[in-house]
């Protein structure tokens, strides 16, 4: 019994195939999904999604969204998703540094919130590469 995983972004379908297991980071912590999991709906935080495929773990950086799991069908809807292998390490590191600089420069509540989000996204991308 394998799970059918579908990762969708507004632009395109990032992943659509069968997997053995996934580890998802949600607002309330990381959860692992194995076949025949009970149906749940959960919000997905900005974090890493780990997919186990043929005994190999693939990482993907997700930028927040929503996931629905039911009857061995997982649908993850996110704003943006990037496979770890598709991210350029140099560029991700640079983005992280820029985001940190922006955060220290941010003034006002709204800018701080936005800078924080940007920082988390950049950090997730860097982590996705280092985890491989």
């Amino acid at each position: 019994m394998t799970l059918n995983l579908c990762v969708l972004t507004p632009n395109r379908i990032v992943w659509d195939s069968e997997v053995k297991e996934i580890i998802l980071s949600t607002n309330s912590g990381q959860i692992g999904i194995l076949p025949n999991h009970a149906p749940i709906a959960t919000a997905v935080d900005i974090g890493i999604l780990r997919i186990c495929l043929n005994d190999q773990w693939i990482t993907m950086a997700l930028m927040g969204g929503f996931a629905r799991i039911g009857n061995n069908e997982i649908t993850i809807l996110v704003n943006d998703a990037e496979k770890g292998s598709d991210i350029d390490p140099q560029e991700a590191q640079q983005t992280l540094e820029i985001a940190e600089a922006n955060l220290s420069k941010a003034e006002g509540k709204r800018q701080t919130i936005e800078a924080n989000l940007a920082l988390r996204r950049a950090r997730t991308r860097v982590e996705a590469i280092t985890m491989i």
Partner: protein
Amino acid sequence: MWVSAKSSISNISLLSFRSHQNPFLSLPHISLPHSHSQSSQKTQVYCGIRELRERIDTIKNTQKITEAMKLVSAARIRRAQEAVINGRPFSEALVEMLYNINEQLQVEDIDVPLTNVRPVKKVAIVVITGDRGLCGGFNNLIIKKAETRMAELKNLGLDFTVISVGKKGNSYFRRRDDALVDRFIEGGTFPTTKDAQAIADDVFSLFVTEEVDKVELVYAKFVSLIKSDPVIHTLLPLSPRGVVSDVNGKCVDAMEDEFFRLTTKEGKLVVERDSVRTKREALSPLLQFEQDPVQILDAMMPLYLNSQILRALQESLASELAARMNAMSNASDNAVELKKTLSMAYNRARQAKITGELLEIVAGAEALRQLD
């Protein structure tokens, strides 16, 4: 040989005489026996030969450019349409889940900030235009639609603010000295999730902080390659039936403003949606929420907003490309026609000049011979 030519010599010698004296006077629109071509009646060409040649060259270059622009637009339209199609699975899945969750939440009393229907005092209008010109009346149409909407709102006594996306709209509104909130320069040639996110964040914060009570989107809906419609779509608040009333009555323009509008091919997708819904119906009663339903909805609303805005951006891009393709195609056709007219005039002028020179030579030779 010469006898037969003599009858027309007087005409042509006059011509050649005149042209010799003043090369910039007009030549060939005098009625020649076989000039029944309409071009000689419609367009009177008042140039000398050299100028005609230059004009023909210029028009040839212009035609090459417009033809190239048309082909480029045609190629990019296909990409834009593909982008719209690629975004469909996301919207479908999202819509379905929202629906399911809404159903389950109706028993509980959840307060979702984005569906708050408040009496409207201020409206935010997001106007999506293009970045470049040469697209016929496209940008103008959108701006006019936005202007009529603003006048309507003013008549209703409501305040409004404009968020402009796209360089053409930006330059227009900048000159107008209206109260604008933000001006976005469209980032790049293709609308990405980041652009949509920037707009969505702005709109979201405006709505949630109750600075505005209603957010509307003005963009060009892509109907077909030749036709596109500027439409007004209410983005927030999300209401189950799509009818948002202000202090007086219906605020939304008359169009298909359903809760979940999916794609351009309405008919086709409605059918699909129904069938998909029935397939998943069995799941909904079993669905458990990992977190608070409020948190989950909090996560889904921005997704929904993003996808709506992104879709509007993509459709607007497709409409702009279609308009540009049509405009450039018309321009190419006009250039071809103009070139034909000018070429005919040029050839007539050239031939008249040659004939004149020939006749002068012949006449001179005749005269010399007679003297002998």
